């Protein structure tokens, strides 16, 4: 079996930062990503077979991604595309699924940078085609260069949907309405950003805001979508006004015709791999709930395993990039490298930038906290587990029955969380429902056990694995 010095899982900002710094120390680095291209869900690069005509016409974020990816390609880093890490076995061996085959890889040091997922928020009709995560719409726009729809309603909390709306307008879609659940529009971040001197972020936000104003896009704070309507696909969205606590104000409902509804309710750390290797997880609601514990050198509680980026708490791309750099240098140092004064200087600079980036992350997370009343949108027959089509009523009945206040207990009783997404869609919703029904604090409801394969793999891969 092949053994390398450093393996990095995930080619987003954190993984790219880690790969670059570790490789610069002379360490042997393998970077693995499930996607064909590097960049991850933040940089959203175009496929290899596509060519951008004029890079200057692209967003700063896209261009930054191009530059980082180029640097990695021109370095000694070995990139394995289309490679899913479907398991990490008890002896630390990585199980890889590549081109319908299984491969195994061992690494002296492992850096996990799997990123995050968007928060699923359930309401009647949310399973209809045309209702999608904001990130899905962005991937279609930026990576695939395809419009997700023609008449789009955006909903969620925090500044992210300003960017999605701006991208939709640029691409020629009609933005029917924008719904911000909180009573504070993101533009209220302006003063805080200004006082802290985060000029870049402030400019970016204001650019989107001005573009939306100029296009006369309708924007409503204190509003949420309460129902998605349609038979085979989305045809209309019922929206309502909410109070400070996000409780629907009776009589405020109105219906908007739309073919697409994008949801941007924040992010959850993708902890499947860190749970699989039994890293310590802590609960930090502001950072997305269950986060992977790490020290200042990005070391987890498991010897030889490091994390970088969102998996250790939602902090955004700049935090991820700097944590990645620090993790890359720390892992290299543990192998006796990165002892030069140049490496020390790189690290000190990364730490300085990290402190700044965390300041912004703290501001943004403050704007993106969900209020419990959002759960009140769920009706008895709202599907919560999309894989197994389990309605809320079955889950509510199961909570507390036979003493079950765990995700595992609910799964055994109802099949919710047993499907192919392994609870990624319903887990956090059910945790919140358990907390609501029983009064238990969210931090007492642990995520379910992660089991390999952590994402679907061809049966051939598992058979291959058993035969080797």
């Amino acid at each position: 079996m092949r053994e390398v010095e450093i393996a990095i899982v995930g080619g987003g900002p954190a993984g790219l930062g880690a790969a670059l710094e570790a490789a610069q120390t002379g360490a042997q680095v393998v970077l693995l990503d499930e996607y064909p291209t590097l960049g991850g869900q933040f940089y959203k690069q175009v496929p290899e077979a596509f060519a951008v005509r004029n890079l200057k016409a692209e967003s700063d974020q896209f261009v930054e991604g191009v530059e980082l990816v180029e640097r990695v390609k021109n370095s000694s880093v070995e990139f394995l595309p289309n490679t899913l890490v479907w398991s990490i076995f008890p002896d630390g061996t990585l199980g890889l699924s590549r081109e319908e085959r299984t491969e195994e890889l061992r690494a002296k040091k492992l850096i996990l940078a799997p990123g995050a997922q968007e928060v699923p928020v359930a309401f009647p009709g949310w399973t209809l085609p045309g209702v999608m995560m904001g990130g899905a719409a962005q991937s279609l726009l930026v990576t695939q260069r395809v419009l997700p729809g023609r008449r789009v309603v955006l909903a969620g909390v925090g500044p992210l949907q300003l960017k999605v709306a701006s991208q939709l307008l640029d691409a020629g879609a009609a933005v029917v309405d924008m719904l911000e659940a909180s009573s504070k529009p993101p533009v209220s971040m302006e003063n805080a950003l200004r006082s802290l001197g985060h000029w870049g972020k402030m400019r970016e936000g204001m650019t989107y805001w001005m573009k939306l104003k100029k296009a006369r896009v309708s924007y409503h704070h204190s509003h949420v979508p309460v129902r998605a309507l349609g038979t085979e696909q989305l045809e209309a969205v019922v929206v309502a006004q909410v109070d400070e606590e996000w409780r629907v104000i009776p009589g405020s409902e109105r219906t908007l015709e739309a073919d697409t509804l994008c949801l941007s309710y924040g992010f959850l750390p993708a902890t499947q791999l860190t749970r699989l290797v039994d890293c310590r997880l802590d609960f930090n609601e502001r950072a997305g709930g269950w986060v992977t514990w790490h020290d200042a050198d990005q070391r987890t509680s498991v010897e030889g395993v490091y994390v970088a980026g969102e998996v250790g708490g939602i902090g955004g791309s700049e935090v991820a990039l700097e944590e990645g750099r620090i993790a890359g240098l720390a892992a290299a140092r543990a192998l006796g490298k990165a002892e030069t004064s140049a490496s020390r200087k790189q690290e000190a600079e990364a730490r300085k930038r990290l402190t700044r980036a965390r300041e912004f992350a703290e501001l943004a997370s403050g704007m993106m906290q969900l209020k419990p009343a959002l759960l009140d949108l769920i009706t008895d027959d709202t599907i919560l587990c999309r894989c197994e089509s389990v309605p809320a009523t079955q889950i509510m009945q199961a909570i507390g029955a036979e003493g079950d206040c765990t995700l595992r207990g609910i799964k055994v009783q109802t099949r919710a969380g047993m499907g192919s997404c392994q609870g990624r869609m319903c887990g956090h919703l059910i945790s919140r429902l358990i907390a609501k029904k029983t009064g238990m604090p969210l931090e007492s409801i642990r995520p379910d056990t992660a089991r390999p394969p952590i994402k679907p793999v061809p049966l051939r891969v598992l058979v291959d694995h058993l035969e080797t």
Partner: protein
Amino acid sequence: MESGNERSLRIDSNVERGRAVRITVDGEAIPAYEGESVAAAMLASGRRVFRHAEHDGPRGVFCGMGICNECMVTVADLGHVRACIATVRDGMRVSTQ
């Protein structure tokens, strides 16, 4: 090419796509380009229903990043495939579920 088509959902303003490839969805030929995801090609052709859930209704692209599996389709010789992260290949035969 359908770039002259005003109703196209493909955004052509600043990008050259890969060469055209032939794929079929439920037996019907649809335009697709090298590098595209199966989901993007299907959505661009106006197909939004990727599967019908057992005991429930239609489903389509939701997370767009390969974790919700709502866009699962069947590809001849490959089996179940997440359309949002699978890349089209010339001659690919896709069936909705």
